[in-house]
């Protein structure tokens, strides 16, 4: 139906808007006739240490304008995001917001549908290495799940055997060609009609382990608020994998910190571990093909590369309330090599673009459009920054200190370290060196550009499954 309303245009739209903003700034600067660089001055430290320094810096009014601009943009996006969330929260219209709190409350008022029961679905495609730990982390929860079902999808290893041995149920997908989303759809079609209004379904990856307290905290939330439609996990990276592992751990630490600072307001209900009220999933399935994209009757849109991101947007579009509580944390697998990381991130990036393209520019997707534009502008900003540094280094024959740039560098250093402080000394050490993380960001930026280019040129995307390797702590299945 509405699928493809943006499709290929989404990449072109974002590329043009981000570079348009950069071009505007460039021409504004050029029109203003910037001051030419002055020759460095010589100074002495401790009376004998001679240094060259250059006090070049933009005029104070330009600096102030830039600060104001940045803060206004950030506050503007946050305010719009908040306003849209509040408006959908207060919706009374069961047609446009069938999952809006007031609509749900009036439908369930005065009825007790029994205690909250938790059914966990673990989609697994050849996950014999990580699955036993995943199941153990569930069964050791202080509040145990009521049912655990491993959804075995085209497994050729001992996944099914190991799941049965661990004492959980196994359902094998039948003639499924649509990966994880297809397998989950098959099981959910059977499962959802049996579930009551207070029952929740948890979908978690087979390479993820829950921290204790996750289920207790989530069930408590669901019991206290019958309008709450979903609880998402906060993920952090497993140990190991050396430098590339630390890059990803730092990235996840910052993401979790950001969500906590937002008081749990969700960006993505992560596929690593998220819980949904049965009503939410039933309503999504019923709304597909009419108010949201997808096949009528199916919970997951099998055309989406990032089915968790798609489901989040679907629930938000229907007005559903969701949260990522601080106590709901999970440990997830990291990509062990640059090649697997490239494949994973390209899929996420491509998926994110396709998802917003499929929904178009709507109030619930505005935040996601802004995020894509933000990354797009960041690509240009970081690229031009590195170009400037490069040109300076190769055009000067003596080392010159620039107090302005050093000051900014120090500020960034503090920010990088403070945002990963919880990750311990290794996380802080990597952050304080600044440049390695800049290059990691550049790597992600190249993936972003590739994603935008691929979707604009209409290249087909694939959901590459990286086969787990039989080495301790290196399993490479893709996730999220």
């Amino acid at each position: 139906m509405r699928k493809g309303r943006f499709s290929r245009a989404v990449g072109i739209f974002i590329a043009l808007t981000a570079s348009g903003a950069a071009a505007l700034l460039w021409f504004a600067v050029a029109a203003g006739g910037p001051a030419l660089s002055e020759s460095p001055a010589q100074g002495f430290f401790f009376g004998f240490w001679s240094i060259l320094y250059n006090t070049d810096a933009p005029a104070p009014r330009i600096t102030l304008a830039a600060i104001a601009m940045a803060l206004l943009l950030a506050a503007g996006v946050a305010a719009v995001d908040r306003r849209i969330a509040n408006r959908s929260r207060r919706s009374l219209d069961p047609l446009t917001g069938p999952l809006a709190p007031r609509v749900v409350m009036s439908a369930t008022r005065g009825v007790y549908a029994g205690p909250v029961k938790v059914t966990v679905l673990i989609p697994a495609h050849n996950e014999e290495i990580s699955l036993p730990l995943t199941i153990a982390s569930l069964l050791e929860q202080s509040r145990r799940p009521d049912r655990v079902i491993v959804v075995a999808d085209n497994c050729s290893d001992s996944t099914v055997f190991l799941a049965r041995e661990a004492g959980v149920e196994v359902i094998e997908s039948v003639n499924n060609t649509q990966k994880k989303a297809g397998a989950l759809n098959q099981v959910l079609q059977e499962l959802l009609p049996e579930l009551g209004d207070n029952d929740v379904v948890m979908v978690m990856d087979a390479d993820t382990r829950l921290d204790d307290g996750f289920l207790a905290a989530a069930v408590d939330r669901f019991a206290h608020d019958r309008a709450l439609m979903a609880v998402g996990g906060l993920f952090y990276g497993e140990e190991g994998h050396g430098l590339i592992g630390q890059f990803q751990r730092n990235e996840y630490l910052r993401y979790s910190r950001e969500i906590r600072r937002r008081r749990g307001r969700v960006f993505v209900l992560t596929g690593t571990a998220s819980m949904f009220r049965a009503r939410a999933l039933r309503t999504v399935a019923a709304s597909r093909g009419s108010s949201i994209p997808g096949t009528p009757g199916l919970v997951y849109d099998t055309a989406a590369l990032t089915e968790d991101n798609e489901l989040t947007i679907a629930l938000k579009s229907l007005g559903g309330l969701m949260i990522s509580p601080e106590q709901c944390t999970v440990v997830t697998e990291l990509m062990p090599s640059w090649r697997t990381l490239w494949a994973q991130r390209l899929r996420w990036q491509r998926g994110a673009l396709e998802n917003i393209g499929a929904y178009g520019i709507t109030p619930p997707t505005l935040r996601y459009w802004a995020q894509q534009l933000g990354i797009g502008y960041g690509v240009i900003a970081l690229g031009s920054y590195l170009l400037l540094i490069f040109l300076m280094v190769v055009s000067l024959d003596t080392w010159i200190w620039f107090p302005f740039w050093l000051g900014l560098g120090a500020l960034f250093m503090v920010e990088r370290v403070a945002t990963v402080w919880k990750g311990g000394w290794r996380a802080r050490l990597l952050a304080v060196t600044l440049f390695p993380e800049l290059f990691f960001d550049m790597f992600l930026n190249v993936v972003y550009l590739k994603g935008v280019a691929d979707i604009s040129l209409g290249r087909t995307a694939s959901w590459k499954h990286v086969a787990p390797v039989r080495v301790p702590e290196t399993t490479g299945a893709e996730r999220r």
Partner: protein
Amino acid sequence: MTITAAVPAGLLFPESLLHSQWFAVLATFVAINTVMYAALALAKILPKLHPSDWIRTRNERSETRSIHPDANN
């Protein structure tokens, strides 16, 4: 600088590149962007403000949202 060359030369490009008009535009463009990102970085270090907390409202729920219809809050 004890090198005797008449024109200051960098590793790859002449130093005069740094005094050209377009380089000045690039430097200012980068400076503005960097200041913008630095402002955002500073905002990320400082504790986040939630202005809605400052306003006292009667934010009590008019009815229970619990799954138990007879719960108190």
